[in-house]
């Protein structure tokens, strides 16, 4: 009652760790069997190795955290030669998260990484700034996002999911543009841009000044965005943002998600994914469903309604 079929992905269950919150699985493999997971979204891979931002890289906020890791990763070559083969010992599909500074970066990485055996789908992290257009993030402009999607689709051997940035005026426009450009699915949301200042020094706690806000604080924003987008696109959505409990998982399904990813909570409780996988079937049954996929979009399926944007 937990299996989900999505483009490229046959999921045993709809629970997977979100990109950047699970590394390449190495540390968690010491804690539990990774084959339990629905899938794994690995840390963003860039063409070259990156050290990322200076520390401090995280700061706590009310029911949330800011991070500015800065895409630290060992680069495409090492990911292909070391990380992916290590993950191949587990019976779990890998979703490769791709980041870059130019369209060519994304295309280059996608072509190569999508050929790897256990990579069943790509996830384009489009919250990164496009250096060619003065640093505006790919994900904040519908056309830039669509163009990137199209170029990656041309070279990818596996289905392509686009990870939407929430820092936009109209997320539906961007979702529709990437669908039109050929995206096979969406993942949403990435972090909200935030900041915290130290009272004693007046300086940002995070060395990078701003960071991405994640955790329970952002869940209502993510639920709203998935609710809006899922009614306007016909590709599936993997939902994320602040999930801690099975009820959070179900709320995402009601809003319109077809699977979910767990980010920050992996830091708070490293056993959260297997715990959710274990307790989800009971809760789904308790609520009167035979299969988790009966929950998808249950909130809007009957009555499609527009959103009143003025609260």
């Amino acid at each position, binding site marked *: 009652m937990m299996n989900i079929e999505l483009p490229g992905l046959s999921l045993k269950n709809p629970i997977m760790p979100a990109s950047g919150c699970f*590394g390449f699985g190495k540390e968690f493999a010491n804690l539990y069997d990774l084959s339990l997971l629905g899938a794994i979204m690995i840390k963003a891979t860039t063409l070259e190795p*990156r050290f990322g931002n200076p520390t401090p890289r995280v700061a706590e906020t009310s029911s949330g955290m800011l991070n500015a890791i800065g895409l630290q990763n060992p680069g495409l070559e090492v990911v292909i030669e070391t990380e992916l083969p290590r993950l191949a010992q587990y019976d779990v599909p890998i979703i490769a998260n791709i980041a870059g500074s130019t369209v060519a970066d994304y295309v280059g990485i996608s072509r190569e990484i999508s050929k790897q055996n256990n990579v069943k789908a790509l996830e384009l992290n489009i919250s990164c700034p496009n250096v060619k257009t003065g640093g505006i993030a790919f994900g904040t402009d519908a056309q830039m996002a669509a163009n990137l999607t199209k170029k990656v689709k041309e070279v990818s051997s596996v289905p392509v999911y686009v990870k939407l940035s929430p820092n936009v005026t109209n997320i539906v426009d961007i979702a529709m543009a990437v669908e039109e450009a050929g995206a096979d699915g969406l993942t949403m949301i990435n972090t909200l841009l935030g900041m915290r200042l130290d009272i004693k020094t007046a300086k940002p706690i995070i060395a990078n000044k701003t960071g991405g806000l994640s955790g329970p604080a952002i869940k209502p924003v993510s639920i709203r965005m998935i609710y809006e987008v899922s009614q306007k696109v016909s590709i599936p959505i993997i939902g994320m943002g602040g999930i801690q409990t099975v009820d959070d998982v179900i709320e995402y399904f009601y809003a319109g998600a077809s699977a979910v990813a767990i980010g920050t909570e992996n*830091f708070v409780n490293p056993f959260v994914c297997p715990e959710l996988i274990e307790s989800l079937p009971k809760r789904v049954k308790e609520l009167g469903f035979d299969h988790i996929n009966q929950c998808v979009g249950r909130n809007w399926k009957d009555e499609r309604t527009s959103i009143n944007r003025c609260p």
Partner: protein
Amino acid sequence: MITKQWMEIDNHRKIADHIWELTLKGTLVEQIERPGQFIHIKVDSSSDLLLRRPISISSFDKQEGWMKLIYRAQGEGTKRLSQKHVGDKVDVLGPLGNGFEIEKVEDHETVMIVGGGIGVPPLYELSRQFKMQNKKVTHVLGFQSRDVSFYQEEFSQLGLTFVTTVDGTEGTKGFVTDVMRKNIKDSDVIFTCGPTPMLHAIEETFSNHKRFISLEERMGCGIGTCLACVCKVNSDSSDTAYKKVCSDGPVFRGGEVIYG
């Protein structure tokens, strides 16, 4: 093995201004491998203070199944922690990190242990273990002032102990490095933990000594996965090599990494 366990508070007492000693019981203690390891503690089940707090294991006893933490109640989380009662349970993840490699000290070598402020706690178990090996150890403990100093008695029972305070209200007035300079000739290996400026001063002044240094960094996961706590490796030409304070550290060899 990293374990997540609800440990019971067996004792909880204030030992100096804002400084608390917390004794926890549970089987997690059996997993501790070395002094200098730490645990990651969730102060309560509310989500507003979302992240766990890293606190060093100050001493432990596997037979009796307890460990002691010593922490300063200053921010929101440690303040809330200090309100917990004996009998309450707290959510602990650990043991984490690699700790002090006491086996790297040769038989003939003597040891100086140098702690500053809230960096003192992990050094206590370290000294206890040297004591069990009958190793001669000198302690230099630095505090801001008498009000916030703690465990002088406990350290004195393990070996010669110098105390310095910035304001001179206890022991010698001044910094640990002053006392170290005068007494270092008898010691071959330095173990230290404390504020970054102190660590830098020690690294600079005693760069020819064998040194083990315990670092602090803001953490996300504490288990090596989020890359919040990295520092660069010294003299790395590629500029992408790094160590994680939580899982490669928190203890590093002197000069091994760049920090602060």
